[in-house]
């Protein structure tokens, strides 16, 4: 029954999305007031129905109902409950259903709370949102029905990719999806504004919390995904420039640019066209990224669900949504007036620079991701990796980081460099000192060198906007900016330190033997079998000691074999110290009874993810600050209106 309820609510939700689109479009015409009144309630109910469908799917997975094809293909009765639930979105159909659910709920939420925009823009926005959703509903109902039954019912399910059987990863895709879909709201706002030509500060203020929220989720999702790849794939790398990773980075870059330009538009009524375009581009990047991952058009180490036929369907969706939005943009952009002017040396100027650099990096990542496809079309097989991405993105990232130190100190509209120069003396001196120290130490390559010195300078410079200001009265949004920029510096230092100072050792050791990596002594005490709910493993017990007189600690890396489906994974062991991480992987046993061990000592590597969390935390502070300020303004307006109302009644009474 559950499956049928799920399917029925999915059809109903799709029908309501169609109604929402129609009513929204009619509402924009002169005589469409009746239709206009329909749009908001329909949007809310549509979101709730999508949620009901998704809840049904989760229930089917929780009870392992093997009569549903999707469950039989992706789950197994022996699996722990939390992974059964995670399996409901850890596959193609389920993740698409999660996508429309979040889109529907977000649209419903906008319909409930958003009152700042002109009503016509609001109608166009909700109609746009329904239009995008409708494509995805169609995709689910026609090409990949998650509730399809299976006959005969199999005795057992086929399991979940063991690489995905990990708590971090179970919640990584939903986090990213919340980000992607938050951007869909920004996209719809941009469409709405283009349709009614109402691009101004009110539009920017309405859009900003959605961009901020989406950006926070993207940041956290990317951080979690990078840490997962680091410890679960067992090769000690945290960023591989894999198409799947790029698929999440590209919307983040666009959203970061959008976040900054939307602030300019909200505060200064400038960058109108540019903001609208970024709104369209940011969500387009989410969809293009998802398409590239799902269609199987690019080969990737972790493209989990690929299917070229569905790829064609999603491509058609992309062509309609993105192509349509960009056409609308091209037609309407010329009629959107440009807004206020500003000098090159000003807060706006710095933000424009940041936008251009971010867009350039986005272009580089997109080109690098698509290049193998281009080469294949010409008959060659190539793969593009770090040797292209690292220097090319650094080329634009470095100037951007320099301006990042200056930008927040500049005033709006126009400024003088002498005024901000003084604040940068200390960071600049730190950069020089760190540079000299690294040169004396020697052996650091150019990019990590630049990363380290810039990171140290930026870490201090990001706190400069707090200088000589009343910290208790400072808006939360400013604190948010400070934390996010400081997080960038922290991540940068972690990345550079990891690539500059890591030491690696691949050895074959006998039981009882000790080997050394960096400052660590590592003794292989024993290797024993271990077993879990659906895997068996060989587990090594390592006794490790930092320096000659440190305490002895245990590490337990495993080589695991799963049997449903059969696959072997390396469960690496990590030991975190304040100054870095020791990373151990157990390999096979040699003919002479020696065990292969792969060991890395990675100084300060944890800063990469601590920085990511700081960036997300900064975003959260800014979001809270903005929302609280908005609520205050609304309640203030309400009180003023109430007083006016009261006053006029009093006066009437006097008469």
């Amino acid at each position, binding site marked *: 029954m559950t499956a049928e309820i799920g399917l029925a609510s999915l059809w109903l939700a799709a029908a309501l999305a169609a109604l929402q689109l129609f009513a929204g479009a009619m509402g924009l015409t002169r005589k469409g007031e009746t239709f206009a009144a329909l749009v908001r309630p329909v949007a809310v109910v549509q979101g709730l129905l999508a949620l009901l469908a998704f809840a049904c799917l989760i229930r089917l997975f929780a009870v392992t109902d093997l009569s549903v094809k999707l469950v039989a293909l992706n789950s197994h009765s022996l699996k722990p409950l939390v992974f059964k639930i995670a399996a409901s979105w850890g596959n193609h159909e389920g993740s698409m259903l999660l996508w429309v659910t979040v889109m529907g709920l977000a649209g419903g939420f906008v319909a409930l709370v958003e009152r700042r925009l002109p009503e016509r823009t609001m109608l166009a926005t909700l109609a746009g949102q329904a239009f995008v959703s409708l494509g995805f509903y169609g995709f689910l109902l026609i090409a990949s029905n998650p509730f399809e039954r299976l006959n005969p019912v199999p005795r057992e399910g086929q399991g979940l990719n063991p690489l995905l059987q990990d708590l971090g990863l179970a919640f990584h895709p939903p986090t990213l999806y919340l980000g992607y879909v938050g951007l869909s709201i920004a996209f719809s706002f941009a469409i709405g504004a283009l349709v009614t030509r109402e691009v101004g500060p009110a539009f920017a203020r309405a859009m900003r919390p959605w961009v901020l929220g989406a950006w926070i989720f993207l940041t956290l999702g990317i951080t979690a995904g990078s840490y997962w790849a680091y410890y679960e794939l067992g090769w000690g790398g945290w960023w591989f420039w894999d198409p799947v990773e790029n698929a999440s980075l590209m919307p983040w870059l666009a959203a970061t640019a959008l976040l900054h330009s939307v602030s300019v538009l909200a505060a200064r009524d400038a960058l109108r066209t540019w903001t609208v375009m970024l709104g369209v581009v940011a969500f387009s990047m989410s969809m293009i990224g998802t398409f590239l991952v799902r269609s199987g058009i690019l080969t990737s180490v972790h493209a989990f669900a690929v299917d070229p036929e569905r790829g064609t369907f999603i491509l058609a969706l992309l062509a309609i949504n993105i192509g349509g939005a960009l056409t609308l943009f091209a037609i309407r952009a*010329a009629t959107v007036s440009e807004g206020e002017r500003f000098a090159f*040396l000003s807060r706006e100027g710095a933000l424009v620079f940041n936008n251009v650099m971010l867009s350039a990096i986005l272009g580089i990542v997109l080109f690098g991701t*698509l290049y193998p496809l281009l080469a294949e079309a010409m008959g060659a097989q190539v793969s593009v990796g770090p040797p292209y991405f690292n220097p090319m993105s650094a080329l634009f990232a470095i100037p951007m980081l320099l301006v990042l130190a200056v930008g927040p100190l500049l005033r709006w509209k126009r400024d003088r460099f002498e005024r901000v120069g003084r604040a940068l003396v200390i960071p600049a001196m730190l950069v020089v000192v760190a540079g000299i120290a690294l040169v004396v130490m020697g052996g650091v390559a150019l990019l990590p060198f630049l990363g380290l010195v810039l990171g140290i300078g930026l870490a201090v410079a990001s706190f400069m906007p707090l200088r000589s200001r009343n910290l208790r009265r400072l808006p939360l949004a400013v604190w948010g900016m400070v934390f996010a920029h400081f997080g960038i510096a922290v991540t940068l230092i972690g990345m550079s330190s990891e690539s500059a100072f890591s030491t690696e050792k691949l050895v074959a050791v006998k039981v009882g033997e000790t080997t050394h990596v960096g400052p660590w002594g590592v003794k292989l005490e024993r290797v024993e079998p271990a077993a879990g709910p659906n895997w068996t493993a060989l587990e090594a017990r390592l006794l490790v000691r930092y320096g000659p007189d440190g305490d002895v600690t245990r590490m337990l890396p495993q080589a695991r074999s799963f049997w449903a489906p059969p696959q072997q994974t390396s469960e690496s062991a990590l030991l975190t110290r304040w100054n870095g991480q020791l990373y151990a992987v157990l390999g096979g046993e040699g003919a002479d009874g020696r065990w292969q061990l792969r060991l890395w000592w990675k100084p300060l590597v944890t800063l990469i993810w601590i920085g990511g969390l700081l960036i997300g935390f900064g975003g959260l502070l800014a979001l809270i600050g903005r929302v609280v300020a908005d609520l205050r303004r609304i309640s203030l307006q309400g009180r003023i209106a109430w007083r006016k109302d009261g006053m006029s009644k009093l006066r009437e009474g006097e008469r």
Partner: protein
Amino acid sequence: MSTQDTRHRAPRWAIWLPLALFGLFTALVLVGLLRPADRTVVSALVGKPMPQFKLPAALPDRPGLDSADFAKGSPRLVNIFASWCIPCRVEAPQLGALAKAGVRIEGISVRDSTENLRAFLSQNGDPFAAIGADDDGQVQLALGSSGVPETYVVDGKGLIRYQHVGEIRPEDVPLILEKLKEAGQ
């Protein structure tokens, strides 16, 4: 400092640029979709000789497995299995049927104990002509196998002709028989 006017209107063509780029992207991807490359995973070992190995007997009353024996003989199946592997139980009836049809099946038992192996064979049937004990999984790795069970069709000259990953289901039996027939020609 002079105020530079940054309120230039973007040139007309620049506004169409994103759409043009997206058009290029669509065309490129469409070409990629319509001419999909052959992405079926074929084991690197298919068409190659069995790797050299010599496994001791897993059970005292049964011979072990020497890769040299494969070069002189008729087509046969090599099945990698273990008593701790649940899908191996699922495929046991199919292996039994193949053995009954006259197919010679050699077993490689991975990381197992004699007692467990005996219990497994008495419960699920014993289709094996010989069983080699691969106690550290080295031969399994040399065969390019990623898990248990896996089955190889080996021809009379010791060349691997087909690799079946995962359990053999009833519907897979005709394919395996056909591959064995091809290997015999």
